[in-house]
C-alpha cells in the first residue's frame, strides 16, 4: 500500500499532528509499502530529516513561497500533481482549516470521496475503514471510500507517535500555481504562544461558573503549571469573558487531549460532543448533581475557587520534586 500524507510545518518544524499521521501511515503500509509526505514551501534539510524520522520514504515539496504556502487553494494543484506521480491508495491530512481547504479541493478536483475529521483508521481485509464521530459524537460511523485514492482528514491527537525511523527521504519538487482569486494578505497572531486547542495535549477549561473574565486568570495559572491550553464553554464565550478561539464543543472546537479538566462546566450535550474523545476527563463543579460527573474519570464536587488554586499549588510542588 502507498500512502501520501499532507504534512504541515511551522517555522521549519514538523507539526506534531503531521508526525502522528506519518507514523500511522507507516504502520498501515508495512510491510513493503511506501509513505510519502507532501509539504508546502521550501523543505529544508532539517524538515526532510524530521519527515524521515517520522516515517516518510519520499517527500514531495510544493514550490510555494510566503503566504501561498498557507493556502490550501494554491496547493490543490500541486497536491494533485503529487498524487499523479506517487499513485497512492490513500491521501491523509489533518483536520485543520488548511487541511480541509487542501484535501477537499483536491479530492473534489479528482472526483473521489473523502472522509473528514476521522478519529480512527483501520484495515479490514482489503478494505480501509475510516472512523469518524457523527451527530455531535452521539455515534461513530465507519466509512469506506469507493473511489481511489481514498482521501481522509484526521483529528489531531488521534494516534500516538511511534519510535523514530531511520530514513532519509528523497525530495522531489512539484510546481505550484496561483490560488486564483484568494490572497492571504496578512497573518496575525492574536494570542501569541497559544497552543491550538485541537492539537493540545492537555486542556484546562472553564464555564459559566468562572463568573467573569478576570477569574480566567486562575484557569490560565493552572494551565501554565500543567503546560496546558485554556478552553471554555460556550456560556463563558457568549458572556464575553474569553474569545471564541477557546470554545470547546459542537459550535467550537473538537478536542482530544490526554487530559481535560472542566471547571464550572455543567456538561451539556453540545459541550461534551467536543471533548468526548479526550482520554482522561476531570470535572470540578460545586453541584454534585451536575451532569458532567456521569462522564468523567475523576470528579471533585466543590468550589473551583478553592480547588483550582490548590491544584496549581500541588502540581507546582510535584514538578519541583
Amino acid at each position, binding site marked *: 500500500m502507498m500512502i501520501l500524507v499532507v504534512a504541515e510545518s511551522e517555522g521549519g518544524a514538523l507539526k506534531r499532528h503531521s508526525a502522528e499521521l506519518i507514523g500511522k501511515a507507516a504502520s498501515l503500509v508495512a510491510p513493503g509499502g511506501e509513505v510519502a509526505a507532501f509539504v508546502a514551501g521550501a523543505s529544508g534539510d532539517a524538515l526532510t530529516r524530521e519527515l524521515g524520522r517520522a516515517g516518510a520514504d519520499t517527500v514531495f515539496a510544493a514550490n510555494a513561497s510566503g503566504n501561498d504556502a498557507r493556502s490550501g*487553494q494554491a496547493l490543490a494543484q500541486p497536491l494533485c500533481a503529487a498524487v499523479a506521480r506517487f499513485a497512492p491508495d490513500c491521501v491523509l491530512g489533518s483536520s485543520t*482549516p488548511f487541511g480541509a*481547504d487542501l484535501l*477537499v*479541493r483536491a*479530492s*473534489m478536483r479528482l472526483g473521489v*470521496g*473523502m472522509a*473528514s*475529521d476521522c478519529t480512527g483508521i483501520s484495515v479490514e481485509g482489503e478494505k480501509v475503514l475510516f472512523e469518524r*464521530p457523527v*451527530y455531535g459524537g*452521539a*455515534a*461513530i*460511523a465507519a*466509512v*469506506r*471510500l*469507493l473511489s481511489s485514492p481514498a482521501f481522509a482528514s484526521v483529528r489531531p491527537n488521534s494516534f500516538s507517535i511511534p519510535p523514530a525511523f531511520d530514513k532519509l527521504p528523497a525530495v522531489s519538487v512539484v510546481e505550484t500555481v496561483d*490560488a486564483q*482569486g*484568494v*490572497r492571504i*494578505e*496578512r*497573518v*496575525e497572531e*492574536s*494570542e501569541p504562544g*497559544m497552543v*491550538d486547542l485541537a*492539537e493540545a495535549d*492537555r486542556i484546562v477549561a472553564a464555564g459559566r461558573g468562572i463568573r467573569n473574565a478576570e477569574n480566567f486568570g486562575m484557569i490560565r495559572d493552572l494551565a501554565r503549571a500543567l503546560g496546558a491550553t485554556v478552553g471554555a464553554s460556550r456560556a463563558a464565550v457568549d458572556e464575553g469573558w474569553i474569545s*471564541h*478561539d477557546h470554545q470547546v464543543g*459542537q*459550535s467550537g472546537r473538537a478536542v482530544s487531549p*490526554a*487530559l481535560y479538566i472542566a471547571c464550572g462546566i455543567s456538561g451539556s450535550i453540545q459541550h461534551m*460532543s467536543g471533548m*468526548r474523545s479526550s*482520554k*482522561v*476527563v*476531570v470535572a470540578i463543579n460545586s453541584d454534585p448533581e451536575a451532569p458532567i*460527573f*456521569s*462522564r*468523567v*474519570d*475523576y*470528579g*471533585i464536587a*466543590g*468550589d473551583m475557587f*478553592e480547588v483550582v488554586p*490548590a491544584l496549581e499549588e500541588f502540581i507546582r510542588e*510535584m514538578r519541583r520534586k
Partner: protein
Amino acid sequence: MKIGVLLKEVADTESLIEIAPDGKSIIADRIQWVINPYDEIALEEALRLRESLCGPTATASPEACRAVEVVIVTAGLVHAQETMRRALAMGADRGLRIDVEGLLPDPFFTATLLAAACRREGFDIVFAGKISTDAGWGQVHIGVAEMLSLPHVSPVEKFECDPAFKEAVCTRAAGAGVKEMIRVRLPALIGCEKSLNQPRYVSLPGILKAKSKPIAETNASELGVEVKSAMSIERLAPPPERRRGRMIAGRPRDAARELVRLLREEAKVI
C-alpha cells in the same frame, strides 16, 4: 445581485440519536429538524449584505434593489420544506429544493447537486455554514466552490465587502490564536463560523410573509447530475461509553492533593 445561501436541515442536537436496526442509519421518527446552526449564520450574513445594499441607509437605486435577492438552496427530503420556511421567515426571498429522496447523503454527490443548482442560478456570492452539526463533513461548501471554480474562504469570522462588490476581505482563524486576513475576488463562496454574527429571531410578520414566498423544486436528473456515490457507511455504532468515574471526597485542598496523585500515579497523564 443574487446572493445564494446553502442551507441544510439537521437533527437538533438535543434530539435522541438512536441507531436503526440496519446498523447504518439513525431512527428519524422522533427527530426535531432545525436549520443547521452554521447555515443560520450564513443566512444572517446574506441578509445583512442585502440590507447594506438596499437598507434604509444604502445608496442603491430602487431598480437595482429590486434585483437584489437572497435565495436559499437545499439538497433535502420533502420535510426540509419546513426548515426552509423558517429561513424564508427570517428574510430570504425564495427557496430552491433539490430532492434527494432515495439518494445517499454523500458529500461529493451533494456538492455536485448544489453546484449544478448554483451554476443555473448564477449567484454573485454564496454563503454557507462551515460544517453541518449532524454528519459534520465540512466538505460540501468547499466542494461547491471547487466545482464552480470559485475561490472560497472558510471558516470566516469577519466579512467585509467593498461597495462595488468586486471583492471581500475575510478574517479566518487558522488555528492557535492565528488569524488570516484574506482578500477574495467575487463571485466567491464564504463558509461561515459561529462568531461571525448573531442570527436574528423569526418575527410573526416574517412567518406570515414566508407563507407566500416560493420554494421551487428540482432533482438530479433535471440538473443533469449523474447519481453516483463515492463512499459507503459500513456501520454506525454508539461511541464507547464513558464509565462513571471516581468522585474524590474531602475538603477542597485534600481533594486537590488526591487528584494530583491520581493523575500522576493512576492515570499517568501528568
